């Protein structure tokens, strides 16, 4: 299967080829790729693509996978409706 047909980030439809292209241009971390391709910015928050991309970076730079930092984990763990956050405060004391 060709790299352009392999989806790495399902939230944003980013292919393996797009990852390889940016690595070839000199970008070297998940954080770089995230900002230019939106990988890890979708609803799953890199739960799918995070480790796949870590492996690609490790192969590209010939590094052990444990030396490749994973993405910065940010809240939320899962999507929550804004109105639930707004309304549920009313019962908090």
């Amino acid at each position, binding site marked *: 299967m060709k790299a352009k047909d392999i989806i790495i980030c399902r939230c944003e439809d980013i292919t393996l080829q797009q990852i390889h292209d940016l690595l070839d241009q000199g970008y070297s971390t998940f954080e770089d790729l995230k900002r230019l391709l939106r990988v890890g910015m*979708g609803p799953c928050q890199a739960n799918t693509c995070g480790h796949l991309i870590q492996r690609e970076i490790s192969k590209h730079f010939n590094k052990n996978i444990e030396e490749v930092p994973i993405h910065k984990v940010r809240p939320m763990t899962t999507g929550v409706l804004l109105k639930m956050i707004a309304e549920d405060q009313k019962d908090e004391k």
Partner: protein
Amino acid sequence: MKSNILIIGAGISGVSIAYNLAKKGVKGIHVIDRGYFTNGATGRCGAGVRQQWATEGNCILAKMSIDFFEHAKQTLEYQGDLEFKQEGYLILATTETEHDQFTKNVQLQNRLGIPSKQLTKKEALEIVPHLNPNAFISATFCQTDGHLNPFKMTEAYYLAAKKLGVTFSFYEEALEIKVNDHKITEVVTNKETYQVEKVVNAAGGYAKEVGLLAGVEIPVYSENHEILATEPIEKLQGPMVMSFSKNIYCQQVPHGAFLMGRGNPQAVKSHHVESSWQFLDEMAKTVVDIMPILGNLRVIRQWGGSYNMSPDRQPIISDTDQLDGFYMACGFSGHGFMFAPITGLLLSEIILNEKTTVDLAPLHLDRFKEKGFNYIEKSVV
């Protein structure tokens, strides 16, 4: 290593300065950054570009920058999509005092060629029908304000600068600036020592610390401003909706997600950029009050970033009599992204001793010296 000009910080200001200098034929420009691409304030900002300000200085800088953004893709020959859209900023007035202030703001903006106008509640609701009519009394609107992707805009400048011979190094932090007889001699980083006489401080949230490396006092500090993103949906909202009194800005970016942020009145001076549940609570309450329908959107991520605050909430684009060859672009107070084109242009003019495009006195570090400054920009979230 020998360098002609060393720029500290590869955020939007640093890359714009590098590009503007290189375009004028300056050689030997090197840019360092302590982290990954757009790790600082640029990559954490709300991605808005606006011209509706309350001070003349900010209005002029903003308008000239928008004029650049309108042709940025062609000018910088960028292959990607900058996601520039001009669907306006709708700024809500929620009190009579605010309404009166906005009347004055619009007069000032119109005098400077900014096509803003004051709207009644009914007119505002025609532009953003999902506004809660009880949450505001009137509004101002400027069609040519809008959105721009900060990562892509930075990359556009970065690639254009590289093409002109500028070199970049990431994960490289300035540790020491050596000075002899009022002149810079060397900059030591965690990777390299540079023999260089001209240094540009474009360090964003760390501008004060970089100033101190060279013994230059800059009266700025950083504070954390938080922001969140929702899941993407089909287009619902054209303009950025903003309120200073309610403390909110909220826009739907072309990708479909809503971005919204607010300031924290209790924010302390620090480099802290983490997320808090307090922000999430207040943000949710505020946005559901102003635009109830957005309560149906899921928050998927929140983060923080540094505002580098100056005493009058206007930028410092300046050289200094404290040290020859030391230049700075800092203190943007949350608006460095949208002012980047003019920042780069002005700083290149200062460094090359050219006549500057606008009067520099209101932007110079010296304005904080004795008499102080005239007016504090209040149009800040």
